[in-house]
């Protein structure tokens, strides 16, 4: 590997780090655990940089390493209870009229209740910016499996957050439509 390749490797790794770290936070549910996981991933990636083919998708490669690391650590330690706030179970059911006030904290708690495979699927496809095919490669499963996990995750989140029916939205339909336009959907 030439020195130029070396620099390119570090540069690409750095460019992927914020996204990789967000994935780690999504998986672990905690910033401190996530950063430990990212650190382990960086060391693994660095040690294995010759196995990375320049010009291929480094982000997908890093996500795969991080994900494997996460599950192998979980198998070793067993999963710790994630409810760090301690007040989780009853509280976060959101009433329809409060929909506009649904905050990120509630969303995050809902996300944490999803099974691991569904959570990682909806994060990879819905937030990290991977195609279904790439997500399938990262998770080592079929594309159809990813699609069904994403779909189940969406349904579950809608149920948990009380946005499952059309009548649940906003004060009136006109307002909802304006909101939709404002968010560019």
């Amino acid at each position, binding site marked *: 590997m030439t020195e130029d390749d*070396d620099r390119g490797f570090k540069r690409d790794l750095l460019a992927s780090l914020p996204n990789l770290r967000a994935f780690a936070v999504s998986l672990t549910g905690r910033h401190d655990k996530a950063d430990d996981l990212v650190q382990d991933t960086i060391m693994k990636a660095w040690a294995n940089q010759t196995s990375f083919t320049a010009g291929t998708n480094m982000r997908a490669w890093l996500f795969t390493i991080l994900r494997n690391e996460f599950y192998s650590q979980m198998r070793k330690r067993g999963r710790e209870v994630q409810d760090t706030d301690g007040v989780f179970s009853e509280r976060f059911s959101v009433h329809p009229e409060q929909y506009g006030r649904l905050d990120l904290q509630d969303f995050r708690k809902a996300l944490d209740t999803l099974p691991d495979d569904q959570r990682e699927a909806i994060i990879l496809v819905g937030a*990290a*910016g991977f195609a279904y095919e790439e997500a399938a490669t990262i998770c080592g499963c079929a594309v159809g499996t990813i699609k069904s996990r994403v779909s189940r995750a969406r349904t579950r989140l809608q149920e948990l957050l009380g*946005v499952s029916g059309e009548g649940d939205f906003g004060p009136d339909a006109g307002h909802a439509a304006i*909101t*939709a336009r404002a968010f560019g*959907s």
Partner: protein
Amino acid sequence: MSDDNRKKQDMTLSQHDMKPGSVPPNASISRKLREFYDAVQEEGIPDRFLDLLEKLENAERNAQSQSQSVKVK
């Protein structure tokens, strides 16, 4: 994620889920998901990772120069 990708996803959502006068449920979930994810991304890169990469790079450079000097001998 690039803006292009986001637009693509939004369009996909609106085709499948949009009904007149309603916010598609999937769009609000997707929006929240990205909001949560982007909030972490925008925190940037903690110093500990920059330090770590620098250490790894230095260690590698030292190892290389050592192996070269061994060859010269």
